[in-house]
């Protein structure tokens, strides 16, 4: 099995839906342990499945207890008598007990606004001041020196820190386009950061400082 065959036959989805036979499951498991793209698809499918189950469980109203024997007896008597007064009582009881309607919380999302901030390699000690105003901050366009060539890898860390807050990779940009890093504003606390871009065994550091507007 190769990746294209797996995608075409939707094996990641069939695996997550438990549709594969034992032999197929064994074959696909050997494949996705090797194929990183299928591994990510499989992992994402199970992450979605388990989290969706948790969300739906949380958002569903509790099921009412089934009526006991006395309630069933009373209901049977009402049906047998078929008097209008009892018919109304039955309707009221149905409304109280009936139907498990799924209710979802409405999510309100603020409109997305992105402000761009050109970043050039700074000399040590210089930090580009950025005062984010929208939900997301575009760090860039990045002024990339010629010797730093794609494909790129990048990481962002607090100034003076050693651990990366976030990291990623990027391929060569389309002609006429620049590279920018889009970050959720909530991810950037006030303070100084280094954005390190690596490519072609060279690297460049962009220094910026987040100043939050009170």
């Amino acid at each position, binding site marked *: 099995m190769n990746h294209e065959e797996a995608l075409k036959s*939707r094996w990641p*989805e069939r695996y*997550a*839906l*438990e*549709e594969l036979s034992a032999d197929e499951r*064994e074959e696909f*498991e*050997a*494949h*996705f*342990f*090797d*194929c*990183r793209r299928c*591994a*990510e698809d*499989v*992992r*994402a*499918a199970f*992450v*979605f499945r*388990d*989290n*969706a*189950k*948790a*969300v*739906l*469980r949380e*958002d*569903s109203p509790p099921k009412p207890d089934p009526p006991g024997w006395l309630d069933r007896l009373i209901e049977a008597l009402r049906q047998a008598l078929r008097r209008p007064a009892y018919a109304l009582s039955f309707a009221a009881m149905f409304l109280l007990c009936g139907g498990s309607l799924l209710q*979802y919380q*409405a*999510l309100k*999302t603020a409109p997305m606004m992105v402000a*761009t*901030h*050109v970043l050039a390699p700074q000399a040590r000690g210089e930090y580009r001041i950025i005062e984010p105003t929208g939900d997301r901050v575009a760090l*860039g*366009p990045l*002024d990339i020196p010629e010797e730093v060539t794609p494909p*790129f890898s990048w990481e*962002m860390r607090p100034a003076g820190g050693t651990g990366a807050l*976030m990291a*990623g*990779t*990027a391929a060569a*940009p389309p002609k*006429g*386009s*620049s*590279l*920018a*890093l*889009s*970050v*959720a504003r909530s*991810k950037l606390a006030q303070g100084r950061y280094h954005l390190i871009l690596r490519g072609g065994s060279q690297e460049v550091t962009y220094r910026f400082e987040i100043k939050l507007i009170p």
Partner: protein
Amino acid sequence: MEFYSFTAEYVRKLKEGDAEASRHFTTYFSDLMLIKLRSQFRALDDINEVRQATFAKVIEIVQADGVCQPERFGAFVCGVCDNMVKEHRRRTGRTEQMPENCPEPPDRRVDIERELVSDATKKWVRKVLMELLSRRDRELITAIFLEEKDKDEVCRQYGVPREYLRVLLHRAVRRLQKQLAGERGETKWIAGSQRV
């Protein structure tokens, strides 16, 4: 999830105890093994035992230069995991007669399902369910995943083919991946080269 290429260099670093390679090895295969083993075990304890045994065995073989095809290292780990499952079953295979009228053992699958659940991810899954899927698609997902109804029955009820369920899951997963990529901070290309 970081993606490494499985090469002779990767195996060499693992043998030498390189911290980054070791960290990637355990992180990358931990979730894959959880996913693989959940169809075979109901208790998280069993899965954890097999995972740990697999990690130990793989490192033992790596140390002994026993990995013949480094480019197929993933499939090799999968194979070792299968062997560890058999050993675990052999070791714990003796069963005791359960007394009559004893209470049904608790379903431990919930513990396994919790491994991949987090508040942050639930937030994005809720967004996908609420804002990006139709009501019918939400009902299908509820029927399949929460209520665990028979899939053929659900397809008959909603008048959709089985392929529709696979495409629905594919679309929902892609949307979640997009949301999570946005949350992590994604690189993007913007038109032009504007300077302020």
